[in-house]
């Protein structure tokens, strides 16, 4: 099996780049996880190692079966990593991902059945669609994204850094290799993801939920780039996978320290962030600026390239401006509430509870940002486009206009101060579905569930199974009756 894995590997520059980015993200999260005083440290390292092995197999291999093995390894190892946080979330994650990866297995075998024996461009639109749905669960393509805010916002910070920074990208890396000529449905799904998740992030009151929705929103940009089939947009997606991976890792890790020092996850409770922790503030602002695509940073380059996906149609051009503005809106809103929600009185008694981030954490937070800056300087290596082609001055002006519009909108809406919402969970999702159903029937809403969702679905499954069990005959006389019946049926029809 080892020889099979090794011979099927393709060490193209793109693959190497992706693997090294993934390894850097994992190492950064391992460094940071030391501050979380884990028990069973060696098991934790082992899980990380299996995870690295898994995604390396996914990215490097050209064999579909090795790809599936890698995919399952990633599912299992990330589930194990989540166990260091909450058991319940880990269970939900495992069940959803296991169903997703089994469906992917089915899809991959269908693709192999159609004659595509190695991972490469697929011309068949239907097969492309099946593959998109197959990777949809892991990569949170709209319609299958429901688990992502729930798991990513409740996982421990290093685990959510890995999940949000890299695991969700794996599906898109496969799509990069297979959907090379574009897929119109992926394109529109991408636009829907950016808009829907962007608005959700704008209305979020919990910092980690905001980050989780922003992940879906940024994945939308990647989907747009791949779905358009435009060559520049395609390279923009490659760049965005790497840049967003690094920036999101840094943001999720820093969110852990924010929550620790603020003792709350609600962004309205983040008071005097700038005074309390200047390093963390600068890193967070830089990370968010990368997401928003501020010029000079690599995020600008990738989004600039993805804009080529719009083509010449004037409507799409305006839509793209709108998509960029959505990102600016939620980024600026967080910067206002989270970092610059300053209180003059609070400045004096800060000295006691000022948190100094340890060297581990600092390196974990700064390393991805430094890498993003480096990529900014050398992104022509990845995309083959000269640095001067990015129209920086134009970008500056456009970005300033974006910021102006965003600030005006936010100012007018009082920086979107809304009532604090509960952290999303499977239960809330079920309540929403149930209320929708009750609304159709004209019945009053329910506020909470009597039994939580996991148990409810489990009970439904068990009750169904019990129904099947009770449907079957119980007495031995009736059980034995099946034998002559089946015999007679077979003899009647086949003789």
């Amino acid at each position, binding site marked *: *099996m080892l020889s*099979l894995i090794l011979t099927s590997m393709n060490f193209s520059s793109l693959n190497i780049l992706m693997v090294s980015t993934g390894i850097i993200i994992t190492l950064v999260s391992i460094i940071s996880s030391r501050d979380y005083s884990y028990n069973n440290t060696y098991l934790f390292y082992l899980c990380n190692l299996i995870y690295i092995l898994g995604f390396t197999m996914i990215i490097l291999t050209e064999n579909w*079966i090795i790809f*599936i*093995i890698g995919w*399952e*390894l990633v599912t*299992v190892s990330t589930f194990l990593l989540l166990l260091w946080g909450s058991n319940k979330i880990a*269970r939900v994650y*495992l*069940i959803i991902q*296991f*169903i997703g990866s*089994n*469906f992917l*297995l*089915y899809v991959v*075998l*269908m693709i*192999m*059945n159609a004659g595509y024996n190695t991972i490469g461009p697929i011309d068949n639109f239907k097969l492309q669609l099946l593959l998109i749905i197959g990777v949809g669960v892991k990569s949170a393509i709209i319609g299958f994204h429901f688990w992502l805010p729930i798991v990513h916002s409740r996982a421990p910070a290093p685990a959510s850094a890995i999940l949000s920074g890299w695991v969700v990208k794996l599906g898109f890396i496969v799509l990069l290799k297979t959907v090379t000529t574009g897929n119109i449905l992926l394109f529109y799904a991408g636009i829907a993801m950016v808009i829907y998740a962007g608005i959700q992030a704008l209305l979020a009151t919990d910092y980690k939920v905001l980050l989780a929705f922003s992940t879906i929103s940024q994945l939308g940009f990647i989907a747009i780039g791949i779905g358009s089939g435009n060559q520049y947009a395609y390279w923009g997606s490659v760049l965005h996978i790497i840049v967003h991976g690094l920036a999101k890792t840094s943001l999720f890790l820093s969110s852990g320290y924010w929550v620790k020092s603020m003792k709350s996850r609600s962004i309205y409770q983040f008071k005097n962030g700038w005074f309390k922790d200047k390093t963390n503030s600068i890193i967070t602002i830089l990370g968010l600026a990368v997401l928003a695509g501020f010029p000079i940073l690599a995020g600008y380059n990738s989004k600039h390239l993805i804009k080529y996906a719009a083509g010449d149609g004037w409507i799409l051009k305006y839509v793209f401006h709108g998509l960029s503005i959505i990102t600016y809106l939620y980024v600026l809103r967080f910067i206002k509430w989270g970092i610059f929600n300053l209180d003059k009185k609070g400045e004096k008694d800060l000295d006691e509870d000022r948190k100094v981030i340890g060297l581990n954490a600092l390196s974990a937070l700064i390393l991805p940002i430094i890498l993003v800056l480096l990529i900014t300087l050398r992104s022509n290596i990845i995309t083959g486009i000269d640095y001067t082609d990015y129209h920086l001055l134009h970008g500056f002006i456009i970005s300033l206009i974006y910021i102006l519009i965003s600030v005006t909108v936010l100012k007018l809406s009082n920086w979107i101060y809304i009532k604090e919402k509960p952290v999303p969970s499977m239960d809330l999702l079920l309540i929403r579905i149930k209320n929708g159903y009750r609304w159709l029937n004209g019945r009053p809403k329910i506020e909470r569930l009597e039994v939580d969702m996991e148990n409810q679905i*489990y009970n439904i*499954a*068990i009750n*169904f*199974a*019990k129904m*099947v*069990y009770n449907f*079957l*005959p119980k007495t*031995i006389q009736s*059980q*034995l009756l*099946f*034998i002559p*019946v*089946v*015999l007679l049926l*077979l*003899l009647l029809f*086949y*003789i």
Partner: protein
Amino acid sequence: MELLLLLLIIIPLLTAFLIPLIDIINKKARRILVLAASLAEFFTFLFLVINNWDNIADGTIFIIYKMGGWLPPLGIVLSLDMLSFYFSLLITISVMFLILYSIGYIGHHEGKYYVLIFLMWTAMQGVVLTGDIFNFYVFVELLLITSAALIGFRRNKKGTIASIKYMFYGVIGGLFIFIGIILLYSNLGTLNYAEISANFTTLPFNTQGIISILFLIGLFIKLGIFPFHFWVARAQSTAPSPISALLSGVVEKVYIYAFLRLFWVVFDFNYIQTTGLDKIIIFTAITSSIIGHILALQESDLKRMLAYSTIGHLGIIIAVLTVNTKLAIIAGLLHVLSHLLMKISLFTTAGYLLQFVPSHQIKDSRGVAQQNMFVFAGFIIAAAGMMGLPPMLGFFSKLYIVKSFLDNSYYLSALLTIAGSITALIYYARYIIYGFRKIKLNSPQEFRLILSVLYRERLVTNIALVFAVAVLITGLIYKNFFGPLESVANILYNPSIYIDFILGG
């Protein structure tokens, strides 16, 4: 050299009859006899492998032993080709380990147990090695009687009911096989596999059909495929754990061997394909599989749950073998191996873990992981194989099963296979979660530790772990099984090879 085939049957048979005699002389000598006989059987097989290594490696092994020197159409023959070799290998190794496990689990004071288990071993080797259809029937019935006695071994009400039910089904299944044999003998005048195989197509079309259907129903009853599955859970859950492992892991595989040998080599598989009976077999088997998984989901008793999961997996194996392409047969045979290892591993680990809880109910198994972390890890490994997670062998067999279903446009079967493995995740996870649940140690009344009644605890745990490790290791080297299994598939595709060897050689 040919005598080794006879020895494989004779050694356990003689041991079974020697055990009561030795009991009269000295009860302690029996321990040595049981150990020595199981090792002797193993080394006989090893000797066979070493002597014929070249033939086994290129898949051309063929050994024939003529009983009493009579030539094939008249006398009974024992024969070993690649198909029998594969199943005989599985039986020899797994039963040897299970007897060692029994030594730790049941102890040495029960002489009858070892008599019966050695007779079972004889019967299984006999079914696999024989080349005569009536001899096959005799061994199948011997297997039935001995296993029925072992199911009722605890001599309580539950065990007796299970045993009688098992007997009912087994005897009716055997009866169908027996009627089929009578029809064969009255029409062809021979009982030899090769002779029947050579002349089967000369029979009238309807007679072929009746014989095929009778054997099919007989085997389905013995396998416990859906409308005939009612004995499975009761029988496999009330038997002692090593016997459950034997029934679920090995005895069912013996019937799968019979299914392959009879329908591919002895009867013409073309008949089944031309009449469209294979579609019915696949439909029944897949329905059986999903119903097995659903029944496992609602079960609150651990051993019954494992037994229902056996129905689920046997259905898949039968369905994929009936697809009848080379890849499908390889996938089915691979799943035979993986299911054997996983089920034995699950039953042996469960047998150990159930010693520490008040009942077999899943909700009583709280905190069982604390008793022995390694054995519990073994259970998890085997369960992960059942769900189909890499790098366990269960993943690769599931993968190739789904692939061969899809290659032949059985899309629904592929989906149901996947649905089964998702169901498996839910019902195994339930036990594992209960196992990890912490027990409050400050209230000793709540946690009633039942003292282990095992005789050799280390032996039991080690053998349970051997199978769990085997699940893991075979998964890492799964590619190496493809060569030998392909030669097994060749035997099934070309019955003429078998006929020529028996009648011409």
